[in-house]
């Protein structure tokens, strides 16, 4: 990463040149100059069960794209622009792979089996089954049930959405304008005043799940029923939304 101002100025000139004549040599040089950034960001996404080498490769692809697409006319540092592109690439990588690569196959199967048990049991009993009941039905221990549920949550976006201080990216994630129709519910105006602006940053489906859970006080199983998806899916979306909102909320506050 070019941190000294002289080097940065040099690179700026080179980007301008590259924008004009797009020679492969210049391209290679610009990429080379920022490999450190790609590696740094890849490392930030380590510890998630993916080999670091793979992540570096994914990050490098992001870097290539950034170099090719960067417009030096815009009033933004390349490193800021590239961070955004590279992180985007890394996130997509995790999203595409989901948890499948990390949870052992046995756990995946158990997780799916448990999902079925939960929905059948909920319907039969009219309430959410206990861990013990699920374990009995699945013929595994309670610990295995919990382990499988945890594995199913394996992809957590908490810090994925708060990558290395990428700060001030002008391209900004498009803040969803789809606020959804304001539904009634039990919630008071005060609560809504706090929550609504944050909710608006989430995809529509996640918004409605949060509303049902926290405005209307439905349980996860009830939400699953209403939306025609599994309780597990509700659970995954909920933890994802909360992780995102946590980051949003803390970003809006003073540094701790």
């Amino acid at each position, binding site marked *: 990463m070019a941190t000294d101002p002289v080097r940065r100025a040099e690179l700026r000139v080179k980007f301008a040149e590259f924008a004009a004549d797009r020679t492969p040599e210049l391209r290679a040089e610009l990429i080379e100059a920022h490999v450190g950034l790609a590696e740094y960001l890849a490392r930030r996404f380590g510890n998630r069960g993916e080999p670091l080498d793979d992540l570096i490769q994914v990050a490098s692809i992001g870097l290539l794209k950034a170099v090719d697409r960067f417009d030096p006319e815009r009033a933004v540092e390349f490193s800021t622009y590239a961070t955004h592109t590279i992180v985007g690439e890394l996130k997509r990588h995790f999203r595409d792979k989901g948890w499948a690569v990390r949870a052992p196959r046995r756990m995946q199967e158990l997780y799916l089996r448990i999902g079925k048990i939960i929905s059948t049991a909920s319907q039969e009993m009219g309430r959410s089954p206990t*861990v013990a009941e699920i374990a009995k039905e699945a013929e595994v221990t309670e610990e295995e049930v*919990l382990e499988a549920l945890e594995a199913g949550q394996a992809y957590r976006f908490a810090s994925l959405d*708060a990558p290395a201080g990428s700060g001030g990216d002008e391209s900004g994630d498009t803040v969803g304008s789809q606020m959804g129709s304001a539904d009634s519910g039990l919630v008071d105006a005060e609560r809504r005043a706090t929550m609504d602006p944050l909710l608006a940053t989430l995809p529509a489906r996640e918004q409605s799940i949060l509303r049902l859970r926290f405005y209307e006080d439905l349980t996860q199983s009830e939400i699953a029923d209403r939306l025609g998806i599994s309780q597990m899916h509700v659970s995954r979306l909920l933890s994802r939304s909360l992780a995102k909102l946590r980051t949003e909320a803390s970003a809006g506050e003073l540094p701790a």
Partner: protein
Amino acid sequence: MSERDTAPAAEAGPNGSDRPEVHLSVPATPEFVRLARVTATGLAGRAGFSIDEVEDLRLAIDELCFSLIGAKGRGGRLVLRYRLEGRELEVQGMLEGGGEVTPRISEWSHQILEALVDEHEVGWSPEADGSNRGFRMLKRAE
């Protein structure tokens, strides 16, 4: 455990196993929040929590732990104390060795925690002089 469906309530057990208390001390970084969750859900399973309740607990532990360690973690250790009594699980969390931290959560997090657990207090202190602030929460199985 599997021979009974109900919670191992107030029966006397050897070594306090009727009222298990678990202490966990991990580095105060995000990757260890998972252990905090797993420990909580493990105990909740013993207390006869339903799956919905277990999932709520999981979300609550995330909110609370991150209120202490921040999104990126910090130095020192996250120390958690879990106490199971009948169908009630109490969790206390604090930081050790990372300097004085005032845990804070957003209004939004408060609202969420209100829906997820029966009691919660961020900024709670185990000490009489109010030092060493952390959090405390309690959740009951229905």
